């Protein structure tokens, strides 16, 4: 135990004395969250909106006035034809087009219901969500206004939202789970594989092997500091996203942290596995980036939805562990679901962890060849 603790202490000294390691561990997550926080504004001001009023009646004009005068939007022009919508978006100033169909006012009074369309530029999903949400809030408000005096007599305007360019409209909230998934696999796998291969490169591994330290002690000694630091990291990211984005964990925090620990363990064992097949730090970094970073970004569903992938990529993504963790963490953080809904993914991660650990302990060489 004393040996093990001395080893862990040594690892902490390595980490705290190397400014680059510290930047990777704490700088990158904080920077990512803050950059996202800056880019993703939660309020809008003077967003460009074009109006296409095919009805030109009293109600449509009143609603247009109410929307434009709210202060959130700026009228960028009037359209008269559906074909003009795309050209209008291409100009770049217009973020959304509000469409009142023919006989808008008449439908409202005759049938008690009228449909208006909001077409938003989905290439900036965050702005698009905000604009449609704001517009819908104003329409709701307007509904109460017209319903007020006449009581339930008149009618309801139903806003219908459509997205241009990005019909799925990924919510900006999903980046926090994505960042956690990416950061954890980066720190855990990359850093552990680099630190073990560093011992090989500097020749200190020779002496560690000759020492009475057992392989399990060496591996755990390498893993423990990164496990603790990664865990602190997750809490840091959750706190930051809560403060900056007002994004609380909807589900059980305990469950989330437990799942995160499992994922950290999986990433660490993957890192050890990488180190057993690489003799230099260069190799370890190369394998980590190519073998982990890219699949995590591309194949995990972090950026590109898995459902939209080609079947081959979909199959490949099955063996990419972050794919499962993203499902778990999104479910717990955003949807607020419990273990019942993610037990399958949890089980897969657990099996992967056991597989990686047993392979890496078996592959950890007691000798130099």
């Amino acid at each position: 135990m004393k040996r093990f603790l001395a080893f862990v202490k040594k690892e902490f000294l390595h980490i705290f004395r190397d400014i680059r390691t510290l930047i990777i561990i704490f700088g990158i997550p904080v920077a990512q969250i803050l950059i996202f926080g800056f880019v993703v504004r939660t309020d809008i001001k003077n967003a460009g909106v074009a109006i296409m009023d095919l009805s030109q009646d009293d109600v449509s004009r009143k609603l247009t006035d109410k929307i434009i005068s709210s202060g959130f939007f700026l009228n960028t022009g009037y359209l008269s034809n559906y074909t003009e919508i795309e050209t209008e978006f291409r100009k770049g100033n217009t973020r959304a087009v509000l469409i009142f169909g023919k006989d808008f006012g008449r439908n409202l009074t005759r049938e008690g219901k009228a449909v208006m369309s909001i077409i938003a530029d989905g290439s900036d999903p965050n702005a698009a969500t905000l604009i449609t949400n704001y517009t819908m809030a104003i329409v709701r408000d307007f509904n109460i206004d017209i319903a007020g005096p006449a009581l339930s007599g008149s009618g309801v305007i139903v806003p219908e939202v459509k997205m241009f360019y990005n019909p799925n409209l990924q919510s900006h909230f999903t980046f926090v789970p994505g960042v956690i998934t990416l950061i954890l696999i980066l720190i855990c796998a990359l850093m552990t594989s680099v630190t073990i291969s560093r011992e090989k490169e500097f020749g200190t591994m020779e002496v560690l092997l000759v020492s009475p330290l057992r392989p399990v002690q060496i591996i755990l000694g390498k893993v423990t500091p990164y496990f603790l630091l990664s865990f602190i990291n997750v809490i840091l990211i959750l706190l930051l996203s809560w403060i900056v984005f007002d994004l609380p964990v909807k589900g059980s925090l305990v469950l989330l942290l437990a799942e995160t620990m499992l994922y950290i363990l999986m990433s660490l064992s993957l890192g050890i596995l990488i180190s057993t097949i690489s003799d230099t730090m260069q190799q370890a970094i190369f394998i980590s980036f190519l073998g982990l970073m890219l699949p995590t970004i591309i194949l995990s569903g972090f950026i590109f939805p898995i459902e939209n992938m080609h079947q081959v990529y979909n199959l490949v993504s099955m063996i990419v562990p972050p794919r499962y963790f993203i499902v778990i963490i999104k479910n717990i953080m955003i949807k607020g679901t419990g273990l019942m809904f993610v037990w399958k993914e949890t089980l897969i991660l657990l099996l992967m962890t056991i597989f990686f650990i047993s392979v890496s302990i078996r592959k950890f060489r007691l000798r130099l060849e």
Partner: protein
Amino acid sequence: MKIIDSWRIGKKYGEVQALDDLTFSVNESEIFGFIGPDGAGKTTLFRIITTLLLPDEGKMRVLGVDVVRGFKELRRKTGYMPGRFSLYNDLTVQENLEFYATVFGTTVKENYDLIADIYSHIEPFRKRLAGKLSGGMKQKLALSCALIHKPSLLVLDEPTTGIDAVSRSEFWDLLGKLRKHRITVVVSTPYMDEAMRCDRVALIQNGKILSVDEPDKIRQGFSRKLFTIRSADKYSLITAVRKYPGTLTAYPFGETVHITFSGDLYDDSLFRYLEGMGIKDAVISEAEAGIEDRFLELMEKGATA
């Protein structure tokens, strides 16, 4: 009991025979040196002794324990200093020493008397990062780390390579002091002058042991009469004497050339020959063979055999 008992050890890397049929033994408390050029197989042999590599052929017992089956036991009893000093450059002198002490299940205090002679040189810098030490100081720290658990056998792979002459000499003085602690030292070096400081040496080349003996006896094994010849223009001299028909061998040796003749004799024809080549200031005298001369002779024999 022999500290190391090696019987017909062989090791191959692919097609290359790194070690070939090595049989030798090392006695208790002696300083046993392996002398040979780079690539002779010294590091491979040391890694087999320290259980880091498995031999392909033969058997070896270290401290009475088989190196293949008893590796766990041996790893507690041997101290090893690899060719590159295995220190953590981002830890201080003291942290390095304490780390190795704890890992080997001891404390710095417990065995301080053992390393006192060595460590006292670097103790004033104990707060300095190991990476910022000079070569000589790094070497002393690495030695202290390898010794801190009081190993019965200390294996040093080229501990003096790249170190200045003063530090080298100091280092050998320190090794000599380990005898009183009954620690056996196995050391390799490419420097011939260091061979004389060992109790026994093995000359090794191309994975084969050419000779094992006390350095003086190896030296005396030189079979011919050796002469040393000098001239202001050493380069012309050596090319000239190598062309002289009576010359057997001629090797540069510091400022002079060591030379042997067939029949162990030379006559005036040598000087006439040299004068004909434009060398008029050649001075020749009989010399005592050094270990390097014997080594070169053995290598020559090995090459023609």
